């Protein structure tokens, strides 16, 4: 039974990532693959503050979100200048740079040795060490992020984001400094990704640079494309489907090495099929 609880926790963490990427890619049309880097910043800040700073888990997580926001401000302001393909290229560049920093800044990040012994969160005496309470924590944060994303999109700010997605040049003529809008939603999205990173660190209790690479960004992209762009529920649906595929291929007892590769073949083919069949995804509202 607790296998399912842990699976649900991983699902909740990836759902938060999908929702956060959806706000940037689904609603604002900015396809970014740098998301795994902010996922990593959240995880590393939370882990390092927890172990060395002796800080409470949630304070460390908030610091992670704040740091991710600051880094997103720097990177976002640079990337807001780019458009379309060049935006993705820039995001890939930044992802590799941040991943290299994680690998080579041994004194702080422990480099490839990673960070081990991260303790599970606790707040006012309530400990989330056991799997079930941890899952409840993940679900509450997922609902919080879901509500936040829903609210942002319902405000006029969200409407301007959609207009930027549709025709950035046109909305600019009506007096909107699109760079600022793109920057703010990028920061919000990356902050949410850092939240998921903190949770992941708490869940797995050992992190190393190999879990924050382009493969993870592509996985998040696949979730929102399968589920549906510009639809918060779509992001959750897509994540559910893809996490199911991962665990199904592990459980049906394929020879272990083929199973792992088969999963990646399924993602790849799924992305191609979606581009043909429903580019806007199962319940999406925006075609790339």
């Amino acid at each position: 039974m607790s296998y399912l609880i842990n699976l649900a926790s991983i699902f909740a963490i990836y759902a938060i990532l999908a929702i956060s990427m959806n706000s940037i890619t689904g609603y604002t049309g900015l396809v970014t693959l740098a998301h795994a880097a902010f996922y990593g910043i959240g995880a590393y800040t939370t882990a390092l503050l927890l172990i060395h700073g002796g800080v409470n888990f949630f304070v460390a997580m908030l610091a992670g979100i704040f740091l991710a926001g600051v880094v997103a401000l720097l990177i976002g302001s640079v990337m807001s200048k780019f458009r379309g393909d060049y935006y993705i290229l820039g995001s890939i560049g930044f992802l590799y740079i941040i991943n290299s920093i994680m690998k080579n800044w041994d004194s702080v990040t422990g480099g490839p040795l990673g960070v081990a012994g991260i303790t599970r969160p606790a707040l006012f005496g309530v400990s989330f060490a056991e799997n079930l309470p941890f899952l409840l924590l993940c679900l509450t944060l997922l609902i919080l992020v879901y509500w936040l994303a829903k609210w942002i999109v319902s405000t006029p700010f969200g409407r301007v984001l959609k207009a930027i997605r549709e025709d950035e040049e046109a909305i600019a003529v009506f007096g909107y400094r699109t760079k600022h809008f793109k920057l703010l939603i990028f920061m919000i999205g990356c902050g949410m990704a850092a939240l998921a990173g903190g949770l992941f660190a708490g869940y797995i209790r050992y992190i190393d640079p190999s879990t924050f690479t382009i493969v993870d960004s592509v996985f998040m992209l696949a979730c929102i494309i399968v589920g549906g762009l510009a639809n918060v529920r779509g992001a959750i649906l897509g994540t559910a489907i893809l996490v199911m595929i991962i665990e199904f291929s592990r459980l049906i007892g394929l020879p272990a090495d083929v199973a792992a590769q088969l999963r990646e073949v399924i993602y790849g083919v799924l992305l191609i099929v979606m581009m043909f069949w429903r580019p806007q995804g199962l319940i999406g509202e925006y075609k790339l």
Partner: protein
Amino acid sequence: MGKKIGWAVVIIIVVVLIVILSGSKNQEGATDKSPITIGFVGPLNGDLANLGLNAKSAVEIAVDEVNGAGGINGRPLQVIYEDGKCNGADASQAGNKLINVDHVPVILGGACSGETLAIAPIAEQTKTTMLSYCSSAPKVTEAGDYIFRDYPSDTYQGSYGAKFVKEQLGKTKVAILNVKTDWGDGIAGVFKKSFTEMGGTIVAEESFEQTSHDLRAQLAKIKAAKPELVYFLSYTDASIPGLKQAADMKLNVPMLGGDAWDDPKIWADVGTIGEGAMYTVVSAAHGDTLGAKLKAKTGSEEVIACTPGAYDGIYILADIMKKVGTDSTAIKNALYQTNYKGGVSSDEIKFDINGDVVGANYVVKVVKAGMAAPME
């Protein structure tokens, strides 16, 4: 239209959940002839797949032998193999499945330190014993009370290498070229500390990312530093091009490597370039007997670094389970008292208070005509 599809998919997910749920009721309370299942975690694909798969074959041989000799008090031993892919995320998933779905009392694994460190917290929390057969990173020492390893920590390999270079080879000026991974950094750091303490000097320190094969620039800098020996810590992927590039550059200086060079594929590929290359490896006292068994099973007598530890791991665990049964805490306590004799990886295996194997007898192997053999 969108709504209908959304709901249809949600229903499918619920159905799938129920299927998995019913499948995972645990098997306790069966008759005493039911199999005892333990877990195995290792890299079954990815860059280090050869490491994991070779160990897996040895484990399969050991299990057949144990079951052949009556199993564990009559109950057959069974192993569930999970792929840790040598990274924290997959290893944690694998460990979680073994502990929470298959309810294994003990896990043989992980191989890479990243795998062991990722599963250790879950194992500690659920009081599941872990016996890693290949994790050498110093960090594993304090990974937990339930965490053991029958493969020596890097601290031994690094200091053994330093002593060998300084005393046996009498070299004083050494260049280090290591891959940026937990293994590479771990050993390089220890080597540098002990070599400088013994009065040697490190004339150059270069490193490279695990995925890069082009070491020309690093080797050029090392050549300019005029070392008497290069301590080249690398996995198979970068060793083959690295050795070739060094030879192309006429960097004709002896090379000392780490236990990852115990992979005959390297020497078969580099051919004459490998002549005289040396590397430290845990002396598998009886590696050849295991090699013969592996040849019968898999067609090649290749015994890679982690395999002896995995093979012995099965026997150690089988002996303990015969005495104390399958309760994990009992297994843990018994492991601290184990004194396993006649193992393949070493004649005597004992564990210290941290669960690390006591002592490590390394041997230096040297490559002659494409074959690696222990140096007299």
